[in-house]
């Protein structure tokens, strides 16, 4: 273990740790939390999981939760209120371990007003019951923030009906199916034993009728989704896999009921119940979801609930939805600009990294127009709202609904196969029906239903949920989260990949700084660093961070000339740092598109710092891998400064587009789709939201997958970008597995059919063949996917 690790969060404390009570901390924030917990004797927090604390980079704003004092908002947020008792749910994305659960469930030790709290870990939520007269909603939020569990309260949390009811019906369906399956099996068992035919007639009747009663809820409730889905497919003129399944279920049910009514035993009731049970298990396996991740987010889950409005010189809290054109608002440090607006007082320094992935904040001054979605870094400033929140440019773009229709989701690989499969089965069924007609109608009907029963593609239907479900789990363990299993097939079908540039292939909030010019000594570097330290300009901060190896000293003079640069003197040497105009007196060539910071010592130009984007690790290899197989496109909102560099990385066949607006990106995807391409869009920011929705598969790259990401089909942890090519290639392995599984299930089908057409299908044969085929296919699919992943997909480093 690192000797120098912060006792709270485990980060390296560096050379100057904060020490309290002989314990080392990386920062005052961590120390503050430790002190609170120590005072309340909640030290066990550090025992359950050592160094599990959360580090907060930027100190929290004092007034961040001021809006919770607004009675309108405070009334909407709680789940329920009854006199003095209130229950509220907070979403806390930083919940990550057992210690978090422990601490958040001991909140009552921190404040007597809290009566009870419990954590839902998969959803990263905490439910808190508290007494209104002892603690307010705002104080509660601030208490959580004080121990670094900052609740995320966004606009969509206030919407009525946004607290979704979880669909638990699948589990109940499975429960009922398993209940009936196991009981019916007990009644069927005597018939399979030697001497089963000696069973007294009376028992046969009782067992038959019991099974019939038990199968009713299974056929009419547990399996009902299959009939609906088959019917939905037929309406779209698609024969989905659910059609032969429904036919099989119905044939099994009618045939078995017929036998029960005639007192001939209990037919295939056990196979029928087992079949539906296995199918539902497959559905459940496939339905794995990442509850804390949201793939459906629109701007409402990004926007704050309220904003500070200035009415006749007084600050009031206004809910965002009440904001009107012409309103005057105050935006503080770290706050979000909720609507398109114009600056009227103060200076903006807008961080658009969530919107565009831009690494550096953009400076704005009075009179400038600002799009909604940026975050202010620096002192507060005032704005006049130009458009209402819902009318703002990006808001409208994020709010679009996906055009992907219901029918297209049915047009998949399995359903293509089942189309032919169903036709072939029906032909066999009718042919054997007419062949056996000579022997009497009852035999013919028996053979007909036998064919439908045994051909019921149960194993076929289980292959896909288990193969794709396993693929999804394997991906999830490696930092790539799919919305649903269909995305595996969409990834496989991809032939065109479109990348966004800023924030996607470049690293968010990180830049590549290089110095061009005369060699400068380390003393000179430390002098530059000393000077830029006093400037609040984002470029100054970048240069300051770049020169982090050098010490600083205090400059004798310092002056910042807005829009130009900084000037000052250290050790008698005059330094000018800033634009070329300011430092050298000549203006930059108009072709230069990157940011440059020029430096002169005693008016002698030394050179400049070129500030460019920092590309993701492994970008070159990824593009080389993908280039051979896919049609690559880059679509960037940025200027062409790095075209040449990117042309090398993407290869000569790639299309590189620059200066594209969010709407352009969306149209470009539409154009590609019209050409019949299957488009995978890889983006990150809200400006890609339209394109991500429009594409066949939208993948979002996120530094923190639990924080906001635009609506998409899959979310990828940014550190895994370096193996994105392997993830896509893995979907091909998934399809190999599916093909082999199909073959296995087909062999079982051929064996079964040969019994059926020969009129030899007994309940015993069905009872052995159907589960055997299902289980072997499921085992094959899950095992091989996990095995292939072990060799082809590294869990961490490449």
């Amino acid at each position, binding site marked *: 273990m690192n000797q120098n690790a912060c006792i709270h969060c485990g980060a390296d404390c560096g050379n100057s740790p904060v020490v309290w009570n002989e314990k080392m901390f990386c920062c005052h924030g961590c120390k503050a939390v430790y002190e609170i917990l120590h005072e*309340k*004797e*909640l030290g*066990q927090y550090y025992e*359950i999981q050592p160094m599990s604390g959360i580090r907060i980079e930027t100190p929290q704003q004092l007034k961040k939760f001021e809006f919770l004092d607004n009675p309108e908002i405070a009334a909407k947020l709680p789940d329920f209120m009854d006199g003095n008792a209130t229950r509220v749910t907070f979403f806390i994305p930083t919940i990550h371990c*057992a210690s978090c*659960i*422990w601490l958040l*469930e*001991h909140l009552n*030790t921190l404040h007597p007003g809290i009566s009870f709290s*419990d*954590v*839902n*870990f*998969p*959803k990263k939520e905490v439910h808190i019951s508290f007494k209104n007269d002892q603690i307010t909603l705002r104080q509660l939020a601030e208490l959580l923030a004080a121990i670094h569990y900052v609740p995320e309260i966004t606009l969509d949390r206030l919407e009525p009906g946004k607290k979704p009811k*979880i669909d*638990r019906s699948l*589990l*109940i369906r499975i*429960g*009922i199916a398993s*209940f009936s399956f*196991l*009981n019916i099996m*007990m009644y069927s068992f005597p018939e399979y034993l030697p001497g089963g035919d000696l069973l007294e007639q*009376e*028992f046969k009747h*009782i067992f038959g009728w*019991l099974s019939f009663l038990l199968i009713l809820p299974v056929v009419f409730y547990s399996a009902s989704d299959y009939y609906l889905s088959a019917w939905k497919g037929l309406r779209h003129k698609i024969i989905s896999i659910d059609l032969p399944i429904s036919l099989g279920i119905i044939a099994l049910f009618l045939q078995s009921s017929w036998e029960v009514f005639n007192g001939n035993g209990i037919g295939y009731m056990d196979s029928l119940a087992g079949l539906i049970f296995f199918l539902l298990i497959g559905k459940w396996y496939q339905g794995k979801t990442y509850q804390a991740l949201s793939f459906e987010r629109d701007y409402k889950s990004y926007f704050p609930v309220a904003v500070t409005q200035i009415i006749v010189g007084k600050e009031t809290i206004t809910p965002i939805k009440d904001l009107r054109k012409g309103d005057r608002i105050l935006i503080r440090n770290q706050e979000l600009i909720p609507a398109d607006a114009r600056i009227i007082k103060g200076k903006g320094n807008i961080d658009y990294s969530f919107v565009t992935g831009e690494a550096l904040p953009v400076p704005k001054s009075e009179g400038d127009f600002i799009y909604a979605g940026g975050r202010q870094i620096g002192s507060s400033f005032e704005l006049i709202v130009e458009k209402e929140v819902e009318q703002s440019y990006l808001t409208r773009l994020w709010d679009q609904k996906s055009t992907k229709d219901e029918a297209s989701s049915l047009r998949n690989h399995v359903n293509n196969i089942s189309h032919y499969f169903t036709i072939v089965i029906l032909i066999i069924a009718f042919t054997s029906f007419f062949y056996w007609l000579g022997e009497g109608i009852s035999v013919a009907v028996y053979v007909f239903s036998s064919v439908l029963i045994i051909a019921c593609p149960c194993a076929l239907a289980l292959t896909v949920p288990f193969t794709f479900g396993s693929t999804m789990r394997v991906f999830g363990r490696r930092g790539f989260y799919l919305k649903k299993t269909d995305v595996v097939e969409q990834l496989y079908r991809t032939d065109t990949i479109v990348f966004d540039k800023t924030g996607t292939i470049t690293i968010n909030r990180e830049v590549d700084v290089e110095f061009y010019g005369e060699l400068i000594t380390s003393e000179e570097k430390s002098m530059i660093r000393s000077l830029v330290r006093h400037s609040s300009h984002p470029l100054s901060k970048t240069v300051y961070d770049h020169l982090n190896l050098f010490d600083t000293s205090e400059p004798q003079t310092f002056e910042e000339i807005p829009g130009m640069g900084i000037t000052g003197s250290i050790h008698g040497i005059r330094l000018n740092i800033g634009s070329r105009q300011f430092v050298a007196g000549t203006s930059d060539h108009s072709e230069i598109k990157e940011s440059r910071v020029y430096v002169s010592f005693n008016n002698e130009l030394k050179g400049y710092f070129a500030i460019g984007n920092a590309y993701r690790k492994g970008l070159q290899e990824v593009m080389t891998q993908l280039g051979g197989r896919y049609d690559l496109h880059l679509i960037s909102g940025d200027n062409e400064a790095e075209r040449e560099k990117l042309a090398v990385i993407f290869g000569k066949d790639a299309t590189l587009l620059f200066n594209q607006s969010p709407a352009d990106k969306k149209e470009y995807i539409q154009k590609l789709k019209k050409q019949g391409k299957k488009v995978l869009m890889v983006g990150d920011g809200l400006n890609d939201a339209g394109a991500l929705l429009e594409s066949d598969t939208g993948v979002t790259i996120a530094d923190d997958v639990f924080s906001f990401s635009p609506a998409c089909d899959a979310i990828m942890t940014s550190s895994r970008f370096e193996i994105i090519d392997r993830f896509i290639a893995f979907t091909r392995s998934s399809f190999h597995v599916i093909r082999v599984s199909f073959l296995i299930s087909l062999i079982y089908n051929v064996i079964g059919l040969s019994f059926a057409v020969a009129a030899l299908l007994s309940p015993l044969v069905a009872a052995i063949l159907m589960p055997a085929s299902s289980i072997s296919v499921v085992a094959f699919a899950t095992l091989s996917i996990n095995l292939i992943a072990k060799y082809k997909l590294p869990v961490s480093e490449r």
Partner: protein
Amino acid sequence: MSAIIFLIIIGIIVAAGFLAAFIWAVRSGQYDDDYSPSVRMLFDNKTKVGEEQTKEKQNNNIDNQ
């Protein structure tokens, strides 16, 4: 003969009882979160309240002496 029928009826009633319990458990949300409870049960119950009480007891003992 009648013994077997009696047993079958009991068997179904017991199984149906479990089914009802399962449905109740699902409906009441016990399957919504399959992680937190598994961790929660491992926590020791040494909260501040508990320790305060023991401290008070100790104090009382000292006072009494």
